[in-house]
């Protein structure tokens, strides 16, 4: 079922999709209970009700659990790759275990989503990062994203220097001259695009025409939100400075690598057919309806090597429409509002904390 649909990740309407997904997700819940000891305990000790009728009845895990426990449904010797989230500094990173099949699957699925937005042809590619970002020991989420997206491009050129992350203007200009009047793929983290490309050019009066560029960016808005820069400002600034208008934000997490939600040409973020999103009330966790803001729960039929098929994130968002986007893509459209605000810790805490 999965592979047949890979060429058309946004064709199935929500009703149809929900039924197909539920059967698969239910099977995965059984699969992980049978193969992951921690998951089995967790379901038995928390989700006492065994009768699951729809997606919202299925057990879900808190996203942070992957930081604390090595959850996997494969044997040690089958582990092919371990992904680590960067996480907040000082915190333990999440650990995601993939076997060979999962790794291949994830790559294929990612490809089916991304090519749906940027086309199948591999484009010359600019990466707004420094080359050694992908060379550090262990697989970070950042490296995984860069490498994952790199397969959609060719002639990869990193735009930032290893020394001080300064923009390599000459290299960028040479690249643009080499590929005139044809689409170019540009990839980077939202904050890095802002700080190291946009702000750098703006401050140093560097004028570039990037109208041929298709920008794919992700990684969250937290840092920009702190600077009071929203999605609209971001887009307007890029358009004004570079004439760069083809911009696709995406939302994804290391816990569900492969499944990303990507912004279409109408600025709507779409959920592919093999995944779904539920919005839950942050206090009581009951599922909410369209246009109600709450915690984002991501469901995906991909995670088979680790029990990540149903995860309650700490991100807030809402579903804004279903099957209605003008771009023709079916399924839910989601708006991401960023991380749940954390309350300050109290109590006999440390005298000497910074």
């Amino acid at each position, binding site marked *: 079922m999965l592979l047949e649909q890979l060429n058309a990740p946004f064709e199935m309407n929500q009703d149809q999709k929900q039924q197909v997904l539920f059967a698969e997700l239910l099977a995965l819940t059984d699969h992980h209970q049978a193969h992951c000891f921690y998951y089995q305990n967790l379901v038995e000790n928390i989700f*006492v009700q065994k009768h699951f009728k729809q997606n919202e009845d299925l057990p879900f895990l808190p996203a942070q659990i992957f930081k604390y426990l090595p959850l996997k449904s494969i044997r040690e010797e089958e582990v092919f790759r371990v992904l680590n989230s960067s996480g907040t500094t000082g915190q333990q990173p999440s650990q995601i275990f993939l076997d060979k099949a999962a790794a291949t699957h994830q790559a294929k699925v990612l490809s089916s989503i991304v090519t749906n937005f940027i086309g199948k042809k591999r484009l010359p590619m600019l990466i707004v990062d420094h080359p050694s970002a992908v060379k550090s020991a262990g697989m970070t989420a950042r490296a995984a994203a860069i490498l994952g997206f790199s397969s959609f491009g060719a002639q990869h050129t990193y735009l930032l220097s290893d020394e001080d992350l300064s923009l390599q203007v000459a290299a960028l200009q040479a690249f643009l001259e080499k590929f005139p009047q044809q689409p170019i793929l540009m990839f980077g983290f939202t904050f890095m695009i802002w700080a190291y490309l946009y702000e750098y050019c703006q401050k140093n009066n560097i004028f570039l025409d990037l109208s041929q560029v298709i920008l794919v960016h992700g990684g969250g808005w937290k840092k920009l939100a702190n600077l009071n820069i929203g999605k609209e400002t971001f887009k307007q600034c890029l358009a004004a400075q570079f004439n760069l208008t083809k911009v696709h934000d995406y939302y994804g997490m290391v816990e569900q690598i492969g499944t990303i939600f990507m912004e279409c040409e109408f600025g709507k973020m779409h959920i592919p057919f093999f995944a779904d999103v539920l919005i839950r009330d942050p206090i009581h*966790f009951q599922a909410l309806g369209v246009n109600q803001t709450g*915690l984002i729960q991501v469901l995906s039929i991909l995670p088979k090597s680790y029990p990540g098929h149903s995860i309650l994130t700490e991100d807030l968002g809402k579903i804004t429409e279903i099957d209605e986007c003008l771009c023709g893509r079916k399924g839910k459209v989601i708006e991401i509002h960023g991380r749940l605000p954390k309350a300050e810790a109290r109590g006999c805490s440390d005298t000497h904390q910074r």
Partner: protein
Amino acid sequence: MKILLGKKSSDWQKDVVQLRQASLSVSSNIMPLAIEFLNALSQEIFKNPEYKKYPDLISLAFWLRKANLLALVKQHLVTSAPNTYLRPRGLVLHFTPSNVDTMFLYSWAIGLLTGNQNILRLSNRRGRVAEILLELCDYLLKNASEYASILNYNMFVEYEHNEHVTAYLSQHCDVRVIWGGDTSVQAIRHVPIPAHAVEAVFANRFSLCMIKADALVEVSQQDNRLSAIIEGFVNDAFWFDQQGCSSPRAIIWFGDEATVLQAQNYFWPAVRQLVEERFPDLLTTLSYPVQRFTFLAKVAAENKGRLLGKIDDFPLRIEAQSLDAGLRSEHPGLGCFYEMRIDSLTSVASLLQRKDQTLTSFGFSQSELNDIAMQACGIDRIVPFGKALAFSPLWDGYNLFHTMSRLVVVES
């Protein structure tokens, strides 16, 4: 490095040396002066109706009453052995906690009452109540001439984590007191103090609560008695979002299954109702439920406990079979409880570990509690409901009056 209170010149290191050399030769008068000063502080607090909204401040003021201080001194600054006397050790260096705003003043008060010189490092993350206290101390010491001399031998400082400053202060102290947090204790402890100096440290601790089920069922028939008990428990558990070391995080129910169930059914709804009234933030803060759920998920995944009730219940209740070190250290506060049922006092005693500090209890006799204390290898205080957070100079196994004093033997 900033001197918040005390004599200051342009050179803080000189100020420290000067403080250390301050003549305390008239030290026999120091204690009465300290009592007068602390009592004056107490009155200033009670005088201002604005302060009634800070129960921790009012509790401190109550503790600082002359009547209480005299009683404490009478009880603790005496020795039972003949011809022995308690005298000040010298300079006490206090590292005070960041988020329990009144703690620095309790620590200082004992330093003053024992006749020592004191330097207090205050956290720069201190809250409103600590600021009020600082303002009041500053006002009294500068405007009432009878207390001015206190400034000669006491100093409050504030500085960002800095090992050089800590080392300088430490090399001049005779007693070092480190309040709160394993990380702080370890960070400061490796900075040396003089060979003769002593140290009192307050590490992370775990606290529990023990309820005799049939006694609770009995009082549940009487409305006002149950509500007094619930109030005590709610104050014990939910101040500081249940993150205070003395706040109970586990509940040991004592009795047979049916009675315990009955007691729980009286207990939890009443607790929830009062928390809604007193500590609504615990129920409405958006990030807390998912934090509680994450904690539950971890405990459940390791099969150390199972959910009682529903995942969005407040408090979040987890039935545990035993309490290992992991369960003790991972508990996030925020309204989560481990619960277990036990039907013999010996099993209570064997459950308690060295990390355990306070056991609040309801329904047990003094002799039953004595037995537990004698059999257990941990637990520093067993107190009734409502008393978990009450400050006492007997804390974490120390008598702070004695920690800050030399025991002098005089035989002719």
